């Protein structure tokens, strides 16, 4: 009988129940999708890293040959150039001798094992498109190649590529790929554990639509008409150390080591460890937060429902029914209702976990396992929240029923004497009647208001986070190139006449202990303007010192006026930082080209790159980089980011909508008799809405205004953290238009919820106030 009553009671709250169910479902869904998706990667990745000996660190060495090397190898090499790339063109054997000498020198100095990692960047021609390929020379013991399908190349005209690239370009094993006008047969798909190999020159580029890593036979690699790039992959033999330890223990190593990057601090490889553990933590945190909100709302609803039945319960208790008998049907209902939505959430999470896994795989080139059922995950996603819900429900109901039958029949007035209430009220003493009234009622329902604040804050923050992310690629790549007039960049000019563009020097260097790309620009440069945040031209300052990009400033902490050591090979020079350029393309430091050329090469006309506002002739250059191609790739990545943006904003809006909707509804129920009373007294509809909903309206504005500085603060912290840990700039921004957009969206959500609340207010019976005692 009681069971039927409970079902009938909750039947009247269908909409509320469905929305609550959605919140509960969302918590289970998020946890399951993240947990299963991350597990599928973790279970395949960690053994893969072990079996294929992922490097512990990478050492980059200078592109310039230093005098120590020249002297040490004078017996076997006749050095005619100071750049390694030039040396390769002139004497390949000598080039590899320098590499071996460097490796041995480092191994002698450090307690590590090292292997030279060689690669060549080239172009793939596909129909009318040019794609990029980084061909990696197979290693012997560190970063060994993993074959994911097919076979490794056996002959010089065979190639193995990334499966993601093949899938994106409808390529299959056995198809032909044209690299530098030579045809190669695809024999299989491969992965490499050292993802610190940036595809292209931009660490931000992770799209495999127009770029791939590849493997050829050693002979095939050697035959590829490109100058190899290289670095050293290393393993610690005994103790671990980081870059700071290294430069402190061996200050002289600066001439040999351009950069020392721990794998765990590398965005494209090491970050996966943090990503996986971070995903578990984030998934759990999001789930706990959402389920926490759901649980509290369920608690409030159960409390409300049982409270409204106090009188009949009092009578039943007076007739001899025990608390357990009264409570049992409620708990049964709660259990079935929660279990249903938790299972639904789990099922959906299971269904969507491959998508979540694949989202990772867009960025990290990693192996993965099929999604597999995990008992611990299932228990955490379903039974833990269920248990919490049941325990909470039990105590809420027990607390309400654990009084004499008479007190249930005639409940005592709920005394609003709490310290918080009285203190809060005193704060609003000086305000007008309406504000005092609105906030008095908010203070009267602190639990609900607290859930409201947390929920809406969380939902708005999620939206801000999403729009903040939306700018990342715009700022990093698009934003940068949009400010330039460069159409193409040529490297390794091989023509005899003057190049058709502006001469530039691009060199890797160490600025104090931070890795950077030093770009030598001329003052009369027009294709690469340099401005600060206010738009002032910084090119004239280059003759006096360095101009650093904003992203380099974030990574290194240098400021205008600081003096820094610029290390280019064994050469070390002191410069003053003159200004910060408002660009985010990476670790760029700008200097006057003539000064740089004279300092390093004793030739003030030296250059190694050409910036042009036309498409440079590929025949005249070793490599031509077309800006448009990069921007196209950015556009495709932006699509991914935008999908994520819509997903996160959508989730935030749904959570926000449900919370605002449910709590405004509960609020109207709380004030049912007050509303009736106001109506009888003669309050107009608008006045009642203002009194009852106005407080929440003001609260919304307050929460919104609070989220803005919080979001800005966390964006800065995240930017700083990524810059310090991964040398990756995450320029998250809040644009006024985005703030406005989210404000409008939440305004609409509140209006929709308010409309429903107003409808409820309008249906409150006038005579209710005349007969029913209000608490």
């Amino acid at each position: 009988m009681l069971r039927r009553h409970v079902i009938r009671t909750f039947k009247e709250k269908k909409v509320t129940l469905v929305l609550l169910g959605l919140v509960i479902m969302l918590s289970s869904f998020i946890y399951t999708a993240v947990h299963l998706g991350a597990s599928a990667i973790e279970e395949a990745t960690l053994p893969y890293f072990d079996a294929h000996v992922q490097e512990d660190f990478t050492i980059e060495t200078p592109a310039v040959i230093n005098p120590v090397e020249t002297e040490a190898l004078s017996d076997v090499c006749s050095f005619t150039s100071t750049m390694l790339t030039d040396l390769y063109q002139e004497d390949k054997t000598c080039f590899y001798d320098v590499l071996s000498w460097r490796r041995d020198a480092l191994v002698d100095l450090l307690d590590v094992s090292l292997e030279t990692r060689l690669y060549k960047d080239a172009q793939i021609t596909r129909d009318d498109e040019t794609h990029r390929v980084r061909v990696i020379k197979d290693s012997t013991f560190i970063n060994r190649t993993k074959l994911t399908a097919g076979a490794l190349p056996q002959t010089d005209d065979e190639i193995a590529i990334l499966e993601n690239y093949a899938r994106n370009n409808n390529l299959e094993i056995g198809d032909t790929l044209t690299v530098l006008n030579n045809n190669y047969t695809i024999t299989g798909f491969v992965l490499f554990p050292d993802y610190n190999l940036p595809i292209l020159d931009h660490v931000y580029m992770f799209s495999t639509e127009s770029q791939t890593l590849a493997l050829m036979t050693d002979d095939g690699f050697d035959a590829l008409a490109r100058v190899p790039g290289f670095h050293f992959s290393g393993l610690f033999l005994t103790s671990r150390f980081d870059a700071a330890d290294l430069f402190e223990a061996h200050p002289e190593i600066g001439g040999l080591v351009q950069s020392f990057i721990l794998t765990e601090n590398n965005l494209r490889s090491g970050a996966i460890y943090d990503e996986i553990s971070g995903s578990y933590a984030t998934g759990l945190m999001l789930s706990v937060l959402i389920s926490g909100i759901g649980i509290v709302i369920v608690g409030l609803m159960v409390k409300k429902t049982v409270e409204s039945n106090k009188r009949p319960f009092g009578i039943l208790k007076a007739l001899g029914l025990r608390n357990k008998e009264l409570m049992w049907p409620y708990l049964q209902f709660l259990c079935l209702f929660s279990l249903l939505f938790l299972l639904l959430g789990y099922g959906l999470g299971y269904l969507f976990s491959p998508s979540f896994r694949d989202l990772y795989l867009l960025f990290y080139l990693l192996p993965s396992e099929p999604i597999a059922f995990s008992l611990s995950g299932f228990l955490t996603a379903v039974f833990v929240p269920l248990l919490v819900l049941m325990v909470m429900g039990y105590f809420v109901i027990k607390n309400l029923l654990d009084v004499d039958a008479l007190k249930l029949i005639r409940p005592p007035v709920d005394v609003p004497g709490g310290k918080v209430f009285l203190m809060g009220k005193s704060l609003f003493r000086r305000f007008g009647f309406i504000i005092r009234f609105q906030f008095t009622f908010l203070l009267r329902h602190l639990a609900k208001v607290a859930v409201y604040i947390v929920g809406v804050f969380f939902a708005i923050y999620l939206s801000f986070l999403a729009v903040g992310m939306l700018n990342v690629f715009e700022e990093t790549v698009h934003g940068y190139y949009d400010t330039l007039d460069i159409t193409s960049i040529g490297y390794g000019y091989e023509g005899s006449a003057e190049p058709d563009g502006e001469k530039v020097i691009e060199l890797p260097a160490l600025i104090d202990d931070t890795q950077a790309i030093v770009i030598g620009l001329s003052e009369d440069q027009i294709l690469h303007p340099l401005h600060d945040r206010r738009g002032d031209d910084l090119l004239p300052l280059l003759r006096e010192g360095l101009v650093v990009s904003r992203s380099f400033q974030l990574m290194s902490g240098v400021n205008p006026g600081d003096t820094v050591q610029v290390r280019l090979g064994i050469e070390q020079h002191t410069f003053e930082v003159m200004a910060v350029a408002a660009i985010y393309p990476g670790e760029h430091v700008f200097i006057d080209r003539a000064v740089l050329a004279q300092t390093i090469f004793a030739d003030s006309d030296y250059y190694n790159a050409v910036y042009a506002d036309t498409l440079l002739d590929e025949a005249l250059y070793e490599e031509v980089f077309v800006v448009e191609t990069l921007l196209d790739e950015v556009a495709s990545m932006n699509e991914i980011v935008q999908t994520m943006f819509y997903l996160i904003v959508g989730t935030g809006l749904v959570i926000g909508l449900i919370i605002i909707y449910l709590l405004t509804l509960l609020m109207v129920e709380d004030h049912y008799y007050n509303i009736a009373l106001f109506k009888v007294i003669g309050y107009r509809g608008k006045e009642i809405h203002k009194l009852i909903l106005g407080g929440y309206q003001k609260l919304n504005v307050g929460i919104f205004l609070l989220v803005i500085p919080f979001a800005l603060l966390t964006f800065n912290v995240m930017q700083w953290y990524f810059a310090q840990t991964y040398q990756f700039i995450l320029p998250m921004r809040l644009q006024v238009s985005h703030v406005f957009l989210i404000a409008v969206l939440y305004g609409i959500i509140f209006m929709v919820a308010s409309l429903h609340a107003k409808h409820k207010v309008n249906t409150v019976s006038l005579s209710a106030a005349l007969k029913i005692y209000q608490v």
Partner: protein
Amino acid sequence: MIELKRASKDYQSGTIVTKALIDADLSIDKGEFVVILGPSGSGKSTMLNLMGGLDHPTQGKIVINDRTISDYDQKALIEFRRETVGFVFQEYNLLHALTVGENISVAAHISKHPDTVENVLKAVGLEEHIDKYPYQLSGGEQQRVSIARALIKRPTVLFCDEPTGSLDEEVAKNVLRVLKTLNRETKTTVVLITHNVAIAQIADRVIRLNSGKIIEDRHQDSPEDIGAIHF
């Protein structure tokens, strides 16, 4: 001032029609203290709802101060209630999160020419309790606060629905004294509904209802003193 012209009210629940008030003809003058008496289900609350503009009659007319409020839509009825009438309920209906002063201000806020909170509290003898919360007052005091809340709008008619129903005899008499004094001094018309026959003795006029019909309407030239009646 208050006129009911063949006013009837039917309530329909499914196929069952209940006639709550049948052909009520009535006229109450300004300043009268009227008790509507009747047992439970006699139609007295229905009559009060109609006179107070809380409900529409199924048939007939309700005229208050020469305005036919039975023709009013909801919006007009709100304006009517706002300006013309005050209500006192059996269960006080005070807002427990608000102090006595704030509870009264709730009504003052929507009035064009409200009295002061201090004045109305003085009128009901509670001027010392302005900053107290309702739970700090006795039942009788709470009812007096609800009377003060009704008075602050300076209503021309005060409708009281079983205002002493939850009070013991002595406290109830105090509340009735407040209403009587108010009626005498401000000439506010008081319409009080009750099932308590004793209370009818203090009224200028008694209207008795039974099964939705007025069965008696008599004026009392010498109403009893409140102290002399026994519940």
